[in-house]
């Protein structure tokens, strides 16, 4: 009695899962060693190429590495989230594919790639196809300014924070586009809601970022971190401990805004599955749906990373410092995002706006005011 | 002209500051009185705005003698001309504020918002009229525009009002966009945004030699924006539609405020940036290589002719007054082409008198509409029997608009024509006179309707409902028209102020 277990799959997963686990460990080591590697590569390039070509090659390598990392992260994060959710809910979660399901995301990815790509009748085919890429672009191009270590950033823009605020709005246009192009009312509602939500939460986001900018005096993310280095145990100078503790409020506000900007629960009304079926990606299937997924998890990681940069000292830490510290801090915040998602119900649209206007913005202004006064007093 | 920094500018800036604070206060009053009775609420809104306007008016009347300064790092000018305009705008605003109180058209649901918009336009008009920087000109002009777009669309359930507003904003945005493009080219040509620096850049020989076509294009583009505000041909298309669709008090305001400010910008831009004053300051000479005087003259002639001819065909009172205001814009512009201090004085005088007669005419329109519920000239029949005094008042206003001798309108026209003739442009004055003659037809047509038509109907007539406030306002508006000659004394004051303008430039 009973069904036979699928042997081939078992074999494959048994073979691959150690590889993946080892790969993950290797990736961590690699992340820890990135500064040295980067220095090495830069040296080699400068030795062998003309300065311009070296610069181009260096930035190409930087972009490539970031894209690779950012492309792989969601795969891990999806598995991670599923495990976290499952354990919070006393379940096991994915267990089949590989050791504790580590290969699940890969299997799902393969499935998504090979799934039939359905475009509904009456959809605006061009925009329908374009939208996921736009969303993905909005989420991933923000990584260009995320600093992993001193000088270890794809593009060291001096308007980094402005760039971050500006580029994320591409995503909202993408969501609107997806919502409209689907020719589905639920999708339209989802797109509209997400755009409204992102637009209104951009205000407190910008204000909170501004409060940090006022304290640092620069829009550059490297400068933001270097302002937090040093101090007792290399963590006393983190912004979260400064400004008479008001930055804790700023930190919480920024975290809330980050949740709202990435459409994460409890602010996931654009894709509220109990109301809008799936919101803006109702009609998407196959790899296009997968792109939305990648974008969501990429954005999650980015928002967490930005929070770490702004408030938790970036790569600096009490005992160690470097990209690994940054990565671990960011992962911890990502975990908090997941933890919140699996605890809280969803807000309603008007409550979401009320929260923004009645609570978040006044407090953001408070923080900004105090920060401005404090820095005016200091200078 | 003295260039002042921010702090030292503030003392010359009191009326504007008062107005800005008033508008914020009105906004707050409107919000906190949300749950009160409508009457009480209206008092809470109207009284602070009136107080603010009156305070601002008193400050602007005081004036600081013999100072001519570029405030805020040469952003706005402070001089006699500007102070005079301040007074005009604030007085207009006070009148219009009082107009709104009993108009049946405005259902006064968002009265607070309307007053905030009115105050904003008032203060922005002052900024606009005094700007001596391209950025300021554009910014103030847009502030006036944006607020007046909303004012035109104030009756949001009314189709006409909405259409007027849409037309206004599309025309406005296109013409200001065009103007902006011109301004950007001007900035490129001269490398500066400051009008005086532009003048000096344009005066240099090499620029004059090479920049002819460029400057021509720039002037055409810039005139689009200014012309839109002045409602001169060929940027007058919006004017009849918007005047008809907008609520009448707003129309009254638009026919005076932005138009006057448009002329002020015209003078600031051309006299300040594109002409250099003579030694004694009484006349100007054009700089650059474009004969903009002829250009303005042409515009003036076409404007007044088209305005008058257009008005002949109208059956709607507001529309007729719109065309009439286009024609008056043409007359006013006559003063701008002569390139002399006299011309500016004549314009100012015309504008002041125009304020009274035009606002008066629109007030009569409001009063009649409150009772009759129509803007059609046909429906003015028999007003004479119902309200003889009102009809007589309207007659005085119309005669004044026509330019018939005993009334102030004649004075204004005479002054401006004489200035033109003095400048040796007799044929120009003749065209103006001919136009006045055409204008008399349609004004007389209204009078005929009011006095004669419908007087043979047998029904007993009920007296026209006339609110005491409006009666008083009408009196205040008509009296200056009758005693126009007495205004001479005030015109001296105008002369005095404009002398300061000449000093400045």
């Amino acid at each position, binding site marked *: *009695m*009973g*069904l036979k277990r699928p042997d081939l799959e078992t074999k494959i997963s048994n073979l691959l899962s150690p590889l993946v686990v080892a790969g993950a460990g290797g990736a961590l080591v690699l992340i820890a060693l990135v500064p040295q590697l980067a220095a090495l590569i830069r040296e080699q390039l400068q030795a062998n190429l003309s300065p311009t070509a070296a610069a181009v090659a260096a930035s190409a390598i930087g972009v490539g590495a970031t894209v690779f990392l950012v492309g792989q992260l969601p795969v891990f994060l999806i598995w991670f989230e599923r495990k976290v959710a*499952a*354990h919070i809910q*006393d379940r096991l979660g994915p267990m089949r594919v590989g050791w504790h399901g580590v290969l699940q995301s890969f299997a799902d990815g393969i499935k998504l790639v090979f799934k039939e790509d359905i475009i509904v009748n009456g959809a605006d085919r061009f925009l329908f196809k374009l939208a996921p890429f736009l969303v993905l672009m909005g989420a991933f191009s923000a990584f260009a300014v995320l600093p992993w270590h001193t000088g270890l950033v794809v593009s060291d823009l001096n308007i980094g924070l402005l760039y971050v605020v500006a580029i994320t709005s591409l995503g909202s246009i993408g969501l609107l586009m997806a919502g409209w192009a689907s020719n589905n009312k639920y999708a339209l509602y989802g797109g509209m809601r997400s755009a409204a939500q992102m637009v209104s939460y951009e205000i407190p986001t910008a204000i909170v970022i501004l409060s940090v900018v006022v304290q640092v005096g620069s829009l550059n993310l490297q400068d933001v971190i270097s302002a937090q280095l040093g101090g007792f145990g290399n963590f006393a100078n983190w912004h979260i401990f400064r400004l008479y503790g008001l930055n804790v409020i700023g930190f919480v506000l920024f975290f809330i805004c980050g949740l709202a900007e990435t459409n994460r629960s409890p602010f996931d009304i654009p894709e509220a599955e109990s109301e809008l079926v799936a919101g803006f990606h109702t009609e998407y299937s196959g790899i296009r749906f997968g792109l939305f997924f990648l974008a969501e998890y990429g954005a999650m990681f980015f928002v967490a990373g930005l929070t770490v940069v702004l408030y938790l000292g970036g790569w600096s830490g009490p005992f160690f410092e470097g990209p690994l510290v940054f990565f671990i801090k960011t992962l911890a915040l990502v975990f908090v995002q997941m933890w919140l998602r699996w605890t809280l119900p969803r807000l309603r649209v008007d409550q979401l706006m009320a929260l923004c206007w009645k609570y978040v913005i006044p407090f953001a202004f408070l923080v900004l005011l105090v920060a401005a006064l404090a820095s005016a007093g200091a200078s | 002209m003295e260039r002042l920094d921010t702090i030292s500018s503030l003392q010359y800036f009191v009326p504007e500051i008062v107005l800005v604070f008033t508008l914020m206060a009105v906004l707050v009053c409107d919000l906190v009185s949300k749950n009160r009775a409508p009457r009480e609420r209206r008092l809470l809104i109207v009284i602070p705005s009136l107080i603010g306007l009156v305070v601002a008016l008193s400050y602007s009347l005081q004036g600081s003698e013999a100072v001519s300064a570029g405030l805020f790092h040469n952003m706005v000018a402070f001089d006699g001309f500007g102070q005079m305009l301040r007074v005009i705008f604030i007085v207009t605003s006070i009148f219009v504020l009082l107009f709104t109180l009993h108009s049946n058209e405005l259902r006064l649901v968002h009265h607070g918002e309307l007053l905030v918009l009115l105050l904003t336009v008032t203060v922005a008009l002052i900024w606009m009229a005094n700007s001596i920087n391209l950025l300021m000109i554009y910014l103030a002009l847009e502030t006036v525009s944006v607020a007046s777009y909303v004012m035109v669309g104030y009756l949001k359930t009314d189709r006409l009002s909405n259409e007027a507003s849409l037309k206004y904003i599309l025309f406005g945005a296109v013409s200001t966009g065009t103007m902006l493009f011109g301004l950007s080219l001007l900035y490129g040509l001269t490398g500066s945004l400051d009008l005086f620096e532009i003048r000096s850049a344009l005066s240099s020989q090499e620029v004059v030699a090479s920049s002819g076509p460029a400057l021509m294009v720039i002037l055409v583009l810039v005139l689009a924006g200014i012309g839109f505000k002045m409602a001169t041909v060929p940027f007058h298309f919006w004017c009849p539609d918007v005047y008809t669709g907008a609520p009448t008090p707003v129309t009254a305001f638009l026919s005076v405020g932005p138009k006057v400010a448009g002329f002020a910008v015209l003078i600031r831009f051309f006299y300040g940036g594109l002409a250099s004053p003579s030694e004694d300051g009484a006349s100007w000479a054009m700089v650059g290589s474009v004969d903009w005087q002829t250009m303005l003259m042409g515009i003036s002639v076409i404007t007044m002719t088209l305005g008058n001819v257009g008005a002949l065909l109208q059956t709607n009172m507001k529309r007729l007054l719109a065309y009439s205001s286009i024609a008056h814009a043409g007359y006013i512009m006559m003063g701008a082409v002569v390139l002399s201090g006299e011309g500016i004085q004549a314009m100012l005088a015309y504008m002041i008198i125009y304020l009274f007669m035009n606002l008066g005419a629109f007030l009569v329109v409001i009063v009649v509409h409150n009772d009759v519920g129509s803007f059609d000239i046909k429906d003015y029949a028999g007003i004479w029997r119902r309200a003889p005094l009102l009809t007589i008042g309207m007659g005085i206003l119309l005669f004044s608009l026509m330019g018939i001798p005993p009334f102030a309108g004649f004075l204004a026209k005479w002054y401006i024509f004489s200035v033109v003739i003095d400048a040796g442009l007799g044929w120009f004055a003749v065209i103006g006179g001919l136009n006045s003659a055409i204008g008399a037809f349609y004004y007389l047509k209204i009078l005929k309707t009011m006095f004669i038509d419908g007087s043979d109907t047998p029904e007993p007539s009920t007296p026209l409902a006339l609110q005491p406030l409006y009666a008083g306002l009408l009196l205040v508006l008509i009296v200056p028209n009758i005693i126009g000659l007495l205004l001479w004394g005030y015109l001296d004051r105008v002369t005095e102020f404009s002398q300061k303008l000449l000093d400045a430039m």
Partner: protein
Amino acid sequence: MKEYFADLFAAVTSIAKGMGITLAHLFTKNETQQYLSEENPGARWQSVIVPEGLLQDRSRMRLHVKIEDCIGCKQCEKVCPVDCIDITTEKREKTDAPIFAADGTAVKQKVVQFDIDMSLCCYCSLCVYPCPTECIVMTPEYEFAETVKSEFLYRFAKETPAPPEPPKKETSDPVAAGGS
């Protein structure tokens, strides 16, 4: 104003409480089991409440007919609320050797057709109670998914004695089976 901060406080505390609960659950034992795994080879649900082995005592899953015990009384066919049982009988010839069911009842009818359409069955087990020889029973077997609907037609009547377990039909071709 007081309400504003009270709201804020309530929000923060209630969310913190909820997060505490979920965090605690993150580290508690899982309640679910791996379906079809090494630890659970029979795919049997290990209940935390019911003692082991007792859960399936009365399970009402797949129907099974011990056809050799059937006396063709058609009680089950009559009582079935969804008419999923189809029985045809022929009178046994007097000359045939007497057959007895397991409990000793004499089989007087020859069951030539005993079909149960498991896709219609509502698992109410009403057919089980009236059976005089207890030949129709519900087994704890629940994994009998098929991809073709006609596979759910279980034909129990056999010329030859059916093998005791499993009670699956011999052939998947219903036409061939119908010919018998």
